[in-house]
C-alpha cells in the first residue's frame, strides 16, 4: 500500500502536475503536427530531463505518449492529415464525418473512445505488471535470453514495409550497442581509434537523429505542400444513448488494443488498424464504413489508446519494449538510472504507480486540453515548415549536446539522421533499429551469462521449458508475415 500512496502522492506535487500537463500539451501538439511524433518528442525531451526528478520525468513522458496518440486524431478528422500513424484508421471515417458537417461529433466520439480505451488498458496495466514481473523474477539468463530473442523476432511482424528489413534494422541496432568496451573482458570493440567510441555510442543522440533529423530531411522535399482548409467547429460529446449503443464495440476494441499493446514490438498503429477492421467485421452495417460511420471512429480510437497502456506492461515488467515509443521510455529509464525489468517493481514500485497515475491523469487531461483546444491544435498545422523544422533542428542540436556536453554526440546525431533518412527511403524503419539498440545489451549480457552457466553449450539452453516456449513463439513470430499467403492458398 505504501508504494501506491508514495507513487500517487508524487503526482500531487504541483511541479509534477505541471510536468504531466506539459507532457499532455506537448503530446497533443506533436500528435497534431504531421511529421512530428511522440517518439520524436520523447527523444528530444529526454536529455533535458536529466536535471529533473527522475520519476516526474518518466511520468511526463508517459503522459506525452498517451496524449500523442489522441493528438494525431484531431488533424486526421479535421483536415484528413493524420498527425501520427496510429490515427490513419481514424481518418477513414473521421474525415468523412467532418465533411458531412459533424466535425465536433467526430472529435467527441474519438475523444471519448480514446479515454475509455486508455482507462481500460490502465486497469490491465496495473493488474498485470506486478504479476508479470513476479513471473519474470523466476527467469534465469537462459529464459531472459529467450525472451529477448522473441522480442526481437517480433520486429518481423511489426508494422513496416518489409519484415526482413525490420529484422536487419534490429540487428544493426544490436550491433551499434556492441560498440565500446566489452564489460566482461575489457576489450575495446569497433572504436576505430576514436577515443569517444570506447565509451560506446550513447543512445540518446542516435534516437534524436533517427526520429528528428531523418524526418527533417523527409520534410525538406515537401515544403511546397499545401494543407487543405480545415473544418473545425465546436466539440460535441456523444450522448449517453449513443455510448450505450457503442459500449460493446468500445470494450472489444479496448481489449484488442490492450492485447496487441502487450505483445512486444507491436504498437498503436497495428492496434488501430485491427480495431478498425474488427469494428467493420462485427458491424451490422459494414457498408456504412468509410462514409463517416460512428463505429469507424470508435473502433480504432479505443484500440490505439488502449495499446498505449498495454505497451507499458512488458516495458515495465520485463524490460522489453511493447512499441517504438515505449522503447524510448525504456531508454529514459536507463538514462535516469533505473533498472528496467522485473526488479523495477521490487526496487522502485512507486515509479510504476506514478506512471499509472500520470497516464490516468493524461487520459482525462487530453479530453479537456484536446477538445477545448481542438481548433487551436488543428491550426498549428499551419505553422510554416520553414520555421517549424529549423526549430526541431535547434532542439536536436541542443538536446544531443546536452546529454554529455560533447560535440561528438552532435555528430552522432547528425550521422544517425542522414543514414536513417537513406535507410527509410529503402524501406527500413527507425523503430526496429531503436528496439535493437535498447535490447542489445540485454541480449548480449544474458547470452554470455547463459553460455557460462551451460559450459558454452547452446543446446543445453533447451533444457529450460520456458526457453523452448520462447523459441516456439519466435518461430511463430518469424513466420507470421507468410501466414496470409499460406491461408489464402489453403482457402483457394
Amino acid at each position: 500500500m505504501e508504494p501506491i500512496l508514495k507513487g500517487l502522492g508524487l503526482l500531487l506535487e504541483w511541479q509534477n502536475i505541471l510536468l504531466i500537463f506539459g507532457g499532455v500539451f506537448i503530446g497533443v501538439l506533436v500528435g497534431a503536427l504531421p511529421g512530428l511524433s511522440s517518439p520524436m518528442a520523447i527523444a528530444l525531451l529526454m536529455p533535458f530531463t536529466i536535471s529533473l526528478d527522475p520519476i516526474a520525468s518518466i511520468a511526463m513522458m508517459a503522459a506525452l505518449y498517451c496524449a500523442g496518440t489522441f493528438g494525431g486524431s484531431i488533424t486526421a478528422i479535421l483536415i484528413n492529415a493524420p498527425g501520427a500513424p496510429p490515427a490513419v484508421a481514424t481518418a477513414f471515417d473521421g474525415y468523412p464525418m467532418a465533411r458531412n458537417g459533424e466535425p465536433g461529433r467526430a472529435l467527441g466520439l474519438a475523444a471519448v473512445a480514446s479515454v475509455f480505451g486508455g482507462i481500460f488498458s490502465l486497469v490491465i496495466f496495473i493488474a498485470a505488471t506486478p504479476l508479470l514481473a513476479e513471473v519474470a523474477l523466476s527467469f534465469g539468463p537462459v529464459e531472459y535470453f529467450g525472451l529477448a530473442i522473441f522480442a526481437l523476432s517480433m520486429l518481423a511482424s511489426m508494422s513496416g514495409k518489409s519484415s526482413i528489413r525490420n529484422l536487419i534494422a534490429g540487428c544493426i541496432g544490436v550491433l551499434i550497442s556492441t560498440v565500446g568496451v566489452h564489460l566482461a573482458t575489457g576489450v575495446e570493440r569497433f572504436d576505430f581509434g576514436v577515443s569517444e567510441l570506447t565509451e560506446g555510442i550513447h543512445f540518446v543522440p542516435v534516437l534524436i537523429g533517427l526520429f528528428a533529423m531523418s524526418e527533417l530531411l523527409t520534410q525538406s522535399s515537401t515544403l511546397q505542400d499545401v494543407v487543405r482548409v480545415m473544418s473545425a467547429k465546436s466539440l460535441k460529446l456523444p450522448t449517453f444513448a449513443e455510448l450505450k449503443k457503442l459500449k460493446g464495440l468500445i470494450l472489444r476494441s479496448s481489449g484488442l488494443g490492450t492485447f496487441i499493446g502487450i505483445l512486444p514490438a507491436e504498437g498503436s498503429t497495428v492496434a488501430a488498424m485491427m480495431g478498425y477492421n474488427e469494428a467493420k467485421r462485427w458491424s451490422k452495417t459494414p457498408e456504412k464504413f468509410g462514409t463517416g460511420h460512428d463505429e469507424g471512429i470508435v473502433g480504432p480510437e479505443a484500440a490505439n489508446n488502449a495499446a498505449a497502456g498495454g505497451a507499458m506492461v512488458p516495458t515495465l515488467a520485463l524490460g522489453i519494449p511493447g512499441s517504438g515509443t515505449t522503447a524510448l521510455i525504456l531508454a529514459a529509464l536507463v538514462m535516469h538510472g533505473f533498472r528496467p525489468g522485473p526488479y523495477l517493481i521490487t526496487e522502485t514500485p512507486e515509479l510504476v504507480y506514478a506512471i499509472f497515475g500520470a497516464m490516468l491523469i493524461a487520459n482525462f487531461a487530453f479530453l479537456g486540453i484536446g477538445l477545448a483546444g481542438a481548433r487551436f491544435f488543428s491550426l498549428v498545422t499551419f505553422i510554416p515548415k520553414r520555421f517549424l523544422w529549423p526549430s526541431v533542428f535547434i532542439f536536436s542540436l541542443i538536446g544531443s549536446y546536452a546529454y554529455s556536453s560533447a560535440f561528438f554526440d552532435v555528430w552522432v546525431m547528425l550521422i544517425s539522421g542522414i543514414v536513417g533518412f537513406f535507410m527509410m527511403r529503402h524501406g527500413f524503419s527507425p523503430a526496429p533499429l531503436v528496439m535493437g539498440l535498447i535490447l542489445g545489451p540485454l541480449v548480449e549480457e544474458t547470452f554470455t551469462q547463459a553460455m557460462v552457466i551451460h559450459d558454452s553449450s547452446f543446446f543445453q539452453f533447451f533444457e529450460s521449458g520456458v526457453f523452448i516456449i520462447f523459441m516456439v513463439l519466435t518461430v511463430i513470430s518469424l513466420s507470421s508475415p507468410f501466414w496470409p499467403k499460406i491461408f489464402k492458398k489453403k482457402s483457394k
Partner: protein
Amino acid sequence: MSKQKQKLNPATNLVAGLVHKIDLIVASVIILAGAFMYYEATLFPPAPNILGDTLNADIFPKMLIVLMIILASIIPFEIKFMPEKIAKIDKDRSISLEPITWKTIVLLIALVSVAEFLGPMVTMFVTAACFPLVWGEKNYVRIAIYSVAFPLFVYLVFNKLLGLFFDPGVLQYLN
C-alpha cells in the same frame, strides 16, 4: 502475370527477371559493411585464459553480423515473394531527391562542423537565420524576429530555467 502485378513489378527493376536491381545494391552495401565489421571483430584480442572461450568479445558481434548478412542476402529476392510491399518501397524511392534535400544535408553538416567553434548559443542564432533562408523564406522581417526570439527562448528555458551548461564558444573572445 496480371496487369496489376506487372504494374507493381516493373521489369526495369529486375535483373534476369529474378533480382531487384536497387535492392541488390542495398544488400551489397549491407553485406560489405558486415564483412568489414566481421573482419574488425577478428582483430579483437582474446579474453584472458581464466575467462575461457565463451567470453571472447568477438563471439556475439560475429554471430550478429552473420545473421545480418544472411538476412541482407534475401533482400534482392523479396520482390518475388512480396511484390506489393516492394512496389510500395519502389514508389517512395522512385522520387529522386530534391536539390533542397541535398542543400539541407550540406547545411546541416556545415552547421555541425562550426558548432564547436561557435558554441551552441551562436550556432542557434546562425541556424535560425540560415535555415529559413535556404528553405526559400522570403519574408526577412519574419526571419529576423525568429532568429533572435527562438534561440533566446531556448537559452532562457534550458540555461536559466533548467541549468543546462552552454559552452561559450566564440563568445569567450568577446571579453
